[in-house]
């Protein structure tokens, strides 16, 4: 039995060890917000937060997450009030078909926590100094999320807006 808390709700599930975290969420828990793009870590559509950290749910097994706390796009809003990152994506019109969007949003939520913790990226000029969230930083830190509709300028604007709101 694997015990896993998803969006604040505890679940005890008996899964085949082959079940990915992504398939557990979508097929067993009926949380279809998290999307399956490539199923091989190459697109970011399946991004969720595990214990506050963003990962690709497709390259993880449900049984690896016994006792973990998972946050998916369905768990971000508080009632009718959208999460600031969700609101920023709406305000900036940061999607077209929307398929990559749940992953983009979860990724951006993870990004804001990483920047707050001072974690560097490849775009960080001075590894010894504090991190400033420039556009180049946002692009690099969001590069694990592919958008087939190429809404990248609007996604950049949305993350910039959300970061400003968080600061």
């Amino acid at each position: 039995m694997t015990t896993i808390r998803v969006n604040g709700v505890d679940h005890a599930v008996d899964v085949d060890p082959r079940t990915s975290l992504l398939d557990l969420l979508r097929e067993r828990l009926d949380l279809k917000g998290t999307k399956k793009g490539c199923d091989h870590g190459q697109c970011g559509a399946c991004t969720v937060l595990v214990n506050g950290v963003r990962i690709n749910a497709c390259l993880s097994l449900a049984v690896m997450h016994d006792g973990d706390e998972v946050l998916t796009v369905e768990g971000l809003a508080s009632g009718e009030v959208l999460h600031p990152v969700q609101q920023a994506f709406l305000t900036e019109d940061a999607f077209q078909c929307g398929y990559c969007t749940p992953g983009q949003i979860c990724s951006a939520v993870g990004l804001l926590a990483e920047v707050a913790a001072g974690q560097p990226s490849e775009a960080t000029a001075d590894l010894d100094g504090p991190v400033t969230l420039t556009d180049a930083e946002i692009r690099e830190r969001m590069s694990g999320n592919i958008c087939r509709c190429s809404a990248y300028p609007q996604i950049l604007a949305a993350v910039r807006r959300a970061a400003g709101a968080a600061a």
Partner: protein
Amino acid sequence: MKPFAFERARDVDHALSLAASSPGARFLAGGTNILDLMKLEIEQPPRLIDVGRLPLAEISETASGGLRIGALATNTAVASDPRVRRRYPALARAILAGGSVQLRNKASVGGNLMQRTRCPYFMDAAKPCNKRLPGSGCSAMEGLSSTLALFGASEMCVAVSPSDMSVALAAFDAVAETVRADGSVQRRPVETLHRLPGEAPQVDTDLAPDELILAVELPPPPPGRQVWRKVRARASYTGAIASVAVAGDRVALGAVAARPWRARFTEAALADGASPAEAAGAELAHADGPESRKSLVRRLAADAIREAKEGAAS
């Protein structure tokens, strides 16, 4: 994916005894490489031993003034560590150039080192591949690949190590400490952890099936500036066409061999006062492969060496 038994290791001894008693079993750390390959049925282990929660994630100072990095430290944790950023910036940059944040949050140091050496044809189960199916032939030899080995390849296999991190580790003379079920501990230089393909490309490393990497140890960094460069087909989130790590007077090349490639001829030439271009050329004189690829690596290495000497990119 083929069915397999899943077991979470309670402690290191448990992990080792499980590995020693179940033929074909594999350790599971972040899962970002082995699960990818299991989905494609390129890997079909009968049992996975989850070592992900073993207490091997610590990064600590060594008595000699270096750092000891636990095998289960995530790639993100290593690249974010202030000591790594300050003393081994080429290592932090090499890690940050690999995959995406999501992958690095999951990928472990041990798993990064032990990810399969591969080429695009290895990933395609419909194609002949001596590494995947010994004796079936090598599709890359006659095929399309911008990432063929330039050093140490054989008639059997020309695949390269995809690990960016290991290139910097090799430049720092890092050592991997391992333990087996019989309690024996070994210290293996990262530079030679991986075998060259020779007649048996199906075997990537010299590690025994029950051999677990506990940690990687970095000696104190050599004096001098450090530089990391990676050439790839897009700006981020893809593997290297070639890479280079320079740490003081040491130079390691990436994605050019089945292991991170210390450019000893380059280092010797630099010690003799050669220019960056001459020194890079000294290593590439021993390369085997298309001239275009050799030229790219030569220019990349020369540029990185120049930057390390002068402190500015050209």
